[in-house]
């Protein structure tokens, strides 16, 4: 899942921060909550079991909670907790005791119990007139964020547009290596990383940009703690509420302007002291798959509305359309939940994607040979050429598969789950994992990638000119036994060992040959 990847990259960034800065970060309850959510599942369980326990626990006791098949996850959890300095090992008494970071424990408790949270979750402006009168509602916010974000993505895909993202966005795209400036023309060109970026989920896209923003902010002498606190705070706000800028620091006020450019927050004008978080902000601390209102979904509803408006102007079939809309509203929950661009892929490599957003289609066309476009869907086929084109662009097979998997139609997912369940009933020890996509398709995409690297290079040493076949056999067998032999030719008495094993073989040869002499 790409979400794991995203968490990994955010966690990695956090882990690399020096401990003093981390400790300062943990002073904010909102940040603690967000960091907690980014932890691996097992780590979340362990942290929760220690939050309300003042005494240190021994590592052995924690280990006892985990069954033998989860040891790997346990190790990972402990490792990430340690590198975030959330747990502090304490080796005073014989066995290894660990305790939770006191700053973190305190702030996280405050977050849970609503103790001293001191504005870390934002200050709501209750009597904001615009929200009361319904001037600024969810729809407007969704439209705004979808518009801003899709402008950035469209710009990357290269759709001809009237609107160009602001300078700060362009700067960020350039610095993150997603796009590069062609020197002669001054135009932007998408890079391999950029193609990969397009296939990611929206939450990972936002984070990729924000991590880059963090790196940039460091060079601009902005305080990392304040920047991070602000980002995590945005993730904890409620969409559709007005928030005051008064509690923000100077750095955070500067950031607000940038966040506006990405569509994460909305402000009526640059000097307004009220801001509104959008649904993009909520995605900062959650997986987009689980957020019911996705930005692209919002875009979809906007498109649908526009279409209706046009139809209204035509003034024919008004009644039928309005009933249509009513029906859509009645089944609203279902149609909203199926994410835009849900796709079905068959074993014969045909692909159907229920999407009419130009962006989704543009992304799909990166690796699919699109054939027909209908009113609510596009069909296409995965072909060798189309996939190879994507691979040439630097997109990997795994990324294509991950994209297909995350955008798979719920129906496909359910089918796969049912299949797995049936298999498990027959054989309880089965280690199979959920396969959403047809295995043939997955394998073929991987095979297409393998086609590209037919020549594999290894560094190492060639052994030749042996005096006798016994000598050759002895060394060759030794190399094979320790598993460093890459190639051999018995007739010519030559073999090749990898770089790592060379010294070992050399030592062995010296020992053996010396004895003989």
């Amino acid at each position, binding site marked *: 899942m790409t979400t794991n990847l995203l968490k990994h990259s955010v966690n990695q960034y956090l882990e690399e921060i020096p401990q003093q800065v981390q400790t300062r970060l943990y002073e904010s309850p909102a940040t603690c*909550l967000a960091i907690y959510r980014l932890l691996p599942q097992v780590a979340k369980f362990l942290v929760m079991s220690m939050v309300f326990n003042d005494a240190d626990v021994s590592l052995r006791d924690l280990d006892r909670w985990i*069954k033998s098949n989860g040891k790997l996850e346990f190790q990972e959890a402990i490792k990430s907790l340690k590198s975030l300095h959330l747990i502090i090992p304490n080796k005073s008494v014989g066995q290894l005791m660990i305790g939770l970071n006191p700053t973190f424990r305190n702030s996280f408790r405050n977050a*849970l119990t609503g103790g001293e949270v001191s504005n870390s979750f934002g200050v709501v402006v209750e009597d904001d007139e615009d929200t009361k009168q319904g001037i600024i509602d969810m729809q407007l916010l969704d439209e705004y964020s979808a518009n801003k974000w899709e402008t950035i993505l469209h710009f990357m895909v290269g759709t001809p547009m009237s609107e160009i993202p602001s300078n700060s966005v362009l700067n960020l795209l350039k610095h993150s290596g997603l796009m590069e400036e062609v020197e002669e023309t001054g135009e932007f060109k998408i890079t391999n990383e950029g193609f990969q970026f397009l296939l990611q989920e929206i939450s990972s896209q936002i984070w990729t940009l924000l991590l880059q923003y963090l790196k940039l902010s460091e060079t601009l002498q902005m305080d990392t703690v304040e920047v991070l606190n602000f980002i995590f705070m945005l993730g904890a*706000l409620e969409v559709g509420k007005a928030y005051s800028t008064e509690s923000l620091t100077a750095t955070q006020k500067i950031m607000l302007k940038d966040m506006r450019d990405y569509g994460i927050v909305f402000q009526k004008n640059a000097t307004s002291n009220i801001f509104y978080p959008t649904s993009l902000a909520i995605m900062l601390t*959650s997986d987009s798959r*689980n957020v019911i209102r996705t930005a692209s979904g919002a875009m979809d509803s906007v498109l649908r509305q526009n279409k209706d408006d046009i139809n209204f102007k035509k003034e024919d079939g008004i009644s039928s359309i309005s009933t249509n809309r009513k029906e859509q509203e009645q089944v609203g929950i279902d149609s909203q939940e199926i994410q835009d661009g849900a796709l079905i892929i068959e074993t014969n490599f045909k692909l159907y994607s229920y999407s009419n957003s130009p962006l989704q289609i543009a992304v799909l066309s990166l690796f699919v040979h699109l054939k027909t476009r209908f009113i609510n869907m596009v069909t296409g086929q995965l072909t060798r050429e189309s996939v190879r084109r994507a691979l040439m662009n630097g997109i990997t097979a795994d990324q294509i598969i991950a994209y297909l998997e995350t955008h798979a139609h719920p129906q496909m997912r359910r089918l796969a789950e049912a299949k797995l369940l049936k298999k498990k009933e027959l054989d309880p020890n089965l280690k199979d994992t959920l396969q959403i996509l047809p295995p043939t398709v997955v394998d073929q995409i991987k095979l297409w990638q393998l086609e590209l690297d037919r020549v594999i290079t290894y560094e190492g040493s060639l052994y030749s000119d042996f005096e006798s076949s016994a000598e050759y056999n002895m060394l060759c067998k030794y190399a094979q036994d320790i598993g460093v032999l890459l190639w051999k030719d018995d007739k010519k008495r030559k073999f090749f060992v990898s770089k790592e094993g060379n010294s070992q073989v050399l030592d062995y040869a010296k020992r053996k040959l010396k004895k003989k002499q």
Partner: protein
Amino acid sequence: MDAIADPTFQQTKARSIHTEELPSLLTVVLDTSPKSWIKFDEETDKKDNILHVLQALIVFLNAHLSFNTSNQVAVIAAHSHGIKYLYPKNKNNTDSGNGSTTTDNNDTKIDTVSNSNDQCIISPGMYRRFRNVDETLIEEVVKLFNEEKERVDKTIQKSTLPGAMSAALAYTNRLLKEFETLSLKCRVMVVTCGNSDQKEEIFQYIPIMNCIFSATKIKCPIDVVKIGGSKDSTFLQQTTDATNGVYLHVDSTKGLIQYLTTAMFIDPSLRQIIVKPNQGSVDFRTSCYLTGKVVAVGYICSVCLCVLSIIPPGNKCPACDSEFDERVIAKLKKRPVVPKLKKRVNKSK
């Protein structure tokens, strides 16, 4: 054929399936029947045990919400005269089965009371998602307690806990269908208190069994926290055993939050790799349909499988009304006969 359909390539992320992050729904069933709580207060010489439980519960709900952004919660109270959804709030405002003419007046009055109340409990700067849940919960609890006050004189009916559990499962089932695309996971947690009368508990057997069946069908573990009381609740213990849940018996409300955040915090997605903290063995015996005694060996109706400790009067099954074969009954009623030893005198002759 399967071999062909299997992938050639090794899945590199093979183990991730254990802890795939999926949102989960936690439905809490809280036993608020005043009788058992007062009894428990008397036993422990402490006041307001239920408030301690509520405090711990609220923090626990927050903890659940913080586990995953899309996690959901629901709280259902089993009070002396029925059940009540504490969260999410019942929009229809239909109170279960009491006079509806006066409720409107009461509601407005109580609203004002609760508003002033919750402001001092819940800090306004709290994370919005927590606050929304907590405020509604407290409001509804205050309403419920006020309603209970009026009912003091009325006779107390039998336990409503199984009913609340059924409601929780029904709610869970509905949300599972609604959020099918999110592949929502679910669990139910029952918080109950004290020793319910042996007799009373027995009549819960069949409804609880039905809950177990429906819970296993929707793969919903039921966890039970029993506070106080000397004996374990047999049937709730069976429930947790059958649904892969956790049974926890705590003696006092002190430090309850620690129990909740460890033993009760095992998310459905973690169940596969975390050891369940279950204590002791489970009593699997059932109860007699007529007398309510817990039986180890008894009679069973061959039609409806109803368990009896005595031969029912009228030779009819009390549950399904099917008539029993008289000969069989006669055989059952027959006292065991000790066969007399035959005299060997004749043989010897």
